[in-house]
């Protein structure tokens, strides 16, 4: 059952991405409703995929990389639907859906069996959930940053094309960027602390100073500086857009490193 739902979700997100990209390039607004509908149904099957997997396993299945990536994709779409309902910025879907699809495809590429966890790691899902939710915040900030830079560039070069007409006002994108970080950062912080406690519980030390953990701390510190810079010395607008794009690139690289190391592979 979970596999069927999972495959259905991939197909629906694929269609949603296609419709949203077509919507982005066409003058008409007509496609937005189709794109939204497909995405909403995809979100539903995705929710069912996650729930049925947990029911079958009889535990909270949020420990493996597959589970983490699938959850990340799900939460990303959830945030998109939330912003969409509140602000009716359809074009956000044209940027978020591809990201959600990529995450889901990478989840599909990772080993899908439910991991058998040692009893001491039973609560590791708290760490995974919070860290992933924090990362979703950074992902949305990243998307807002890209959209900001595009709109800024179009305004500066006076190219009033279809994209210009569809993208929301600059200050909306800047605010979305800020709010995503403000929400994501504390979640990630608590997530990292939860992870440290889990590690201490399982292995007896909070930090083992391996490269991934160091990278994670560097990322955390980076976003801390970005957030403080915005709140105190006006690191907003274009600068904030650049910084959050760089930050998210760091997050993605960290994750790839961790996955490659864990699964042997080429690394």
């Amino acid at each position: 059952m979970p596999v069927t739902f999972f495959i259905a979700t991939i197909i629906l997100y694929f269609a949603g991405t296609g419709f949203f990209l077509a919507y982005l390039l066409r003058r008409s607004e007509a496609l937005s409703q189709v794109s939204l509908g497909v995405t909403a149904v995809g979100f539903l099957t995705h929710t069912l995929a996650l729930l049925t997997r947990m029911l079958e396993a009889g535990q909270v299945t949020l420990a493996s990389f597959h589970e983490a990536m699938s959850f990340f994709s799900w939460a990303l779409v959830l945030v998109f639907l939330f912003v969409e309902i509140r602000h009716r910025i359809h074009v956000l879907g044209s940027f978020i859906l591809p990201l959600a699809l990529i995450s889901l495809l990478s989840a599909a590429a990772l080993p899908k069996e439910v991991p058998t966890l040692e009893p001491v790691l039973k609560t590791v899902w708290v760490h995974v959930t919070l860290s992933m939710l924090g990362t979703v915040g950074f992902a949305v900030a990243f998307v807002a940053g890209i959209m900001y830079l595009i709109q800024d560039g179009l305004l500066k070069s006076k190219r009033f094309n279809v994209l210009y007409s569809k993208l929301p006002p600059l200050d909306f994108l800047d605010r979305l960027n800020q709010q995503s970080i403000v929400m994501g950062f504390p979640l990630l912080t608590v997530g990292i602390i939860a992870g440290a406690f889990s590690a201490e519980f399982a292995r007896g030390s909070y930090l083992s100073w391996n490269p991934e953990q160091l990278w994670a701390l560097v990322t955390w510190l980076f976003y801390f500086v970005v957030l403080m810079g915005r709140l105190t010395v006006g690191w907003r607008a274009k600068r904030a857009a650049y910084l959050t794009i760089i930050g998210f690139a760091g997050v993605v690289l960290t994750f790839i490193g961790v996955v490659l190391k864990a699964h042997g592979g080429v690394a």
Partner: protein
Amino acid sequence: MAASHERIPTVHRMNIIAVGLSHKTAPVEVRERLAVPESRLGEALHRLCGYQGIKEGVLLSTCNRVEVYAVVDDVEAGFARVQEFLADTHLSLSSEQLTPHLYWHTDGRAIGHLFRVAASLDSMVIGEPQILGQLKDAFEASLTHKTSGVVLNKLLQKAISAAKRVRTETKIAETAVSVSYAAVELAKKIFSNLSEKTVLLVGAGEMAKLAAKHLINNGVQRVMITTRNPQGAIELAQRFNGTSIPFDEFRRAMAEADIVLCSTGAAHYLIRAADVEEAVRRRMNRPIFLIDISVPRNIEPAVKDIDNAFLFDIDDLEMRVEQNREERRREAVKAEGMVEEEVAISLQWLKSLDVTPTIVALRKRAEDIKQAEIDKVMARLGHLSPQERSAIEGLASAIVNKLLHGPLITLKAEAHSAGSSMYVEAAKRFFGLDTDQSPAATPAEPALARSDKREAAPVAALKQNVPGGEPEQKRA
């Protein structure tokens, strides 16, 4: 039975004509003499409908067009009467002088013209919103003076609703087609909520004042004004409900201004890149939107390269306007298609107003009801002798025929009269012959209730304002 063999009179239907002139066919010297001021509209309408053969009339008079829509018995005579009427509106005009400027449409073409005018497809600036309001005023006047009847009332309502459909389903009126409004449109792509924003008006150029007015209409609440002549700033501040700022201090005020509108007669750069850099720094990188409507320019072009500062000059705004015009023309093609659809629907309705099909429909309806009731009663009574059967059938036929006698005679008698369409419409409503739906199957009540509501509220509907659009042209 006997009824279906009776000769049904073929009745010629009423004709709709549109006669007039517009900015496309007549110079302003002719238009201004023909225009009827609002105060004399009632008198003009009564004069129009006083002519022999004109059953209904509506007069649309704006600074860009003067048009008569009328329902007439005979097209040629109608054209002549309306031309006479138009020539009579002004002493210095003769019928011959008018002829080269007039256009003449009948029936489908006339309705099409009305719909295109209402949808602002015939306007000087395509998509401008004023014309719809003017048409509503003209309609209201004809309702007040009772010069329009069943036909024109319905057509004008249809024209107005078709125009609204065009406005909501196409982008024909969405974009700015004036330089001052283009500034507002750009501001909305930088700031999502103009009501929290502050405007600094530098200089008192007309275009900048107009842009400031548009910005205020779009929510801007705080306005700062500076002019080289301090008295001018104070006067403007009163007008815009803003604050005046000494001219030599306005560069400092830029730190508080989200939007700077610059339009002075100065021959040099008043705002230099360094000033804007300083303002952006003090604004902690909050974006600043600068509009330079002065020629020669008053804001140094290098400002374009400063992050979080967005500078647009008159050429940029004009380019935007030209692009929007292009967009409107594209949307107009879509709108033409919609208008055609709506005209077809109205023509269908018009056809149904003919007496002949109404008589046929009425008979068919009566026959259907009769047959259904007979079948019902026969089924209930079981076996009957042929005599009994024919007695029941005879009874039903007699009732139906006696009941229909009056309406049918009246319809035939009124077929050639001025009020024929009214009787047809009444018959259709009384007997539920609404041709919009399959006539026999639908019960009469819902159809009645719906059209009642529609008819009862034409004036109320008229009061609604045209949504959206830019308040660019002055009302004629």
